[in-house]
């Protein structure tokens, strides 16, 4: 059973007068443990696709199965629980709470989780450690650099140990060095901890870290290629 299964998925935005079709029916499957990059120019529908996969928005037609169950069969509370425990989000604009410490930001999803409070601090600290920010634990989120903020966002996405991490242009607001660090962390999470990563990007250098690239153009899948071999080769080259 695939983790994510999408069949002729369509999304049409309507403001009551005009209808704008963003996705014209896309189909693919994503297995557990994959690192998939979804690429495409702006307006191609890649972000919309991610929002649909992340239960942040509702699709118009087609079918989306998550964990073997049709998305529409989940209740509102089920969906909140899935977002909380099975999905993690990393946004382009970080979306940290201002005037709140790194620790509190990372603990935010735990507030809505069934995880007992006694474990919160330890889990949050582990997540912060895995993005290498333990020296910033009690810093106010507004005092961090962009790269650090995005790493806090990753720690927050990680803290409930989700199956999938959705990253929507995570490097879009970062310089190449901190962007690289962010991608490295995502790769590590995929390789060492087996998190499924779905990364949206329009930069091909970023996409190259993925094992599989799905290209989208005008609401349709243009190509869907496995690049594992190539990435391995690059990785080895860098490591040496």
């Amino acid at each position, binding site marked *: 059973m695939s983790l994510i299964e999408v069949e002729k998925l369509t999304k049409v935005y309507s403001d009551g007068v005009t209808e704008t079709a963003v996705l014209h029916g896309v189909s693919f499957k994503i297995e557990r443990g994959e690192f998939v990059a979804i690429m495409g120019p702006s307006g191609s529908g890649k972000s919309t696709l991610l*929002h649909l996969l*992340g239960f*942040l*928005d509702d699709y118009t037609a087609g079918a989306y199965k998550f964990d073997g169950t049709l998305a529409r069969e989940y209740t*509102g*509370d089920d969906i*909140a*629980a899935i*977002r*909380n*425990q099975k999905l993690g*989000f990393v*946004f382009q604009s970080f*979306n940290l*709470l201002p*005037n709140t410490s790194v620790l509190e930001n990372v603990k*935010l*999803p735990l*507030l*809505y*989780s069934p995880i007992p*409070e006694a474990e919160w601090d330890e889990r949050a600290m582990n997540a912060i450690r895995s993005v290498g920010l333990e020296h910033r634990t009690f810093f106010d989120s507004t005092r961090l650099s962009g790269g650090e903020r995005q790493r806090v966002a990753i720690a*927050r996405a990680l803290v*409930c140990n989700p199956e999938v991490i959705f990253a929507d242009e995570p490097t879009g607001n970062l310089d190449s060095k901190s962007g690289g660090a962010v991608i490295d962390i995502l790769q590590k999470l995929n390789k060492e901890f087996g998190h499924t990563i779905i990364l949206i990007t329009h930069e091909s250098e970023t996409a190259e870290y993925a094992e599989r690239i799905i290209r989208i153009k005008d609401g349709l899948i243009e190509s869907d290629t496995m690049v594992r071999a190539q990435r391995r080769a690059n990785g080895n080259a860098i490591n040496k």
Partner: protein
Amino acid sequence: MIIKHSIKTAFRGLETNRARSLLTVLGIVIGVMSIILVMSLGQGAQSLILDQVKGMGTRTIIVGAGREPTGPSDAAQIFNDSLKKRDLDLLLRKENTPSSKYIMPLVFGASSASYQSDTFNLTIFGASPLMENIFDMPIKDGSFFTDEDIRARAKYVVIGNKVKKELFGSDDAVGRVFKMKGHNFRVIGVLAERGQDFFNFDEAAIIPYTTAQDYVLGIKHFNRLIVEAESEALINTAAEEIKLTLRESHDITDPDKDDFFVITQVDLAGRLSSITSVLTIFLAAVAAISLVVGGIGIMNIMLVSVTERTKEIGLRKALGATYKDILTQFLLEAVMLTGLGGLIGILLGAFLSWVISNSITQFTAIAWTFSFPISAALLGIGVSGAIGLIFGLYPARKAARKSPIEALRYE
């Protein structure tokens, strides 16, 4: 989400906008404060009045001439002269009124008193020596008149403290003679100062009722009969005996046609306290209008807050907050805001009431006591919390219904 964390989150939301939160809550503060003030002062007034009525003694029954007036058009009844000497004699027979201990006739009227070049307007009470017991009036100087003085229509007078000061200043008053209605009265006693009372005895001259009827007021009837029952338990029996005796004496068969009225101290207290209660409730209701205005202010600012924090709401939803979580967060913010306002209002109201009570006792002769009704405090907290719930519900629902992605996109 555990309620402890909901409270923490809501508290944080309020703290971020501390100045705005405080300003918003001002409407509730003022509303609750005025309710507390009105209720506290109302209770103070009520206990003051009740204390004065109780000063008459819990066994006191008042018999009045004429039907008790039921409305303004009925006022003429007050001047009825139905209580005569014959009635008093009948009532004084022990077989007619076994449950009564004392029965004292009372007549009253206004008069001016003059001594040398000083004049003073006072109230004349024509009474008997029983007055001293029934109204518990300590004599400061001299003594009260006696039953012998009643028979003799003696022109003796016991004066209130203020009368003494006005006419005689700091001089000794006992033994001096002053004029009322063209007759010379000799002062035989001065009452101790009483302060504002049900009857203002400080400005009264008490003389034998026979003297008052014949020389001062020129009447043959009594205005009131003051009766003291044998015991508190017998007060209603005593009242009933009086009614029966008077009806027989006046040939009345239908109680609705009584040309006299009998009220007990309990009746009087009940009647007066219901008047103050109605007044208090009315004033509190007026004050409550400001609470509604305050509630609208809360709703307004909560709507602003929901819009401002659209992104935060989207984020929380994306991280797993349910509809209920968001609803609870914003409802709690509203309730905590109004609850806090209620609390401040209660403290301010109680403080103001205390200041007012203190000034009343300090600057007037009224024996006002500060009272703070717990019911008012509970009402204040309850009402302000309820206002938070009612006026917070709409903004909170608006927040909870936001679609996460639209909220996240909001700039």
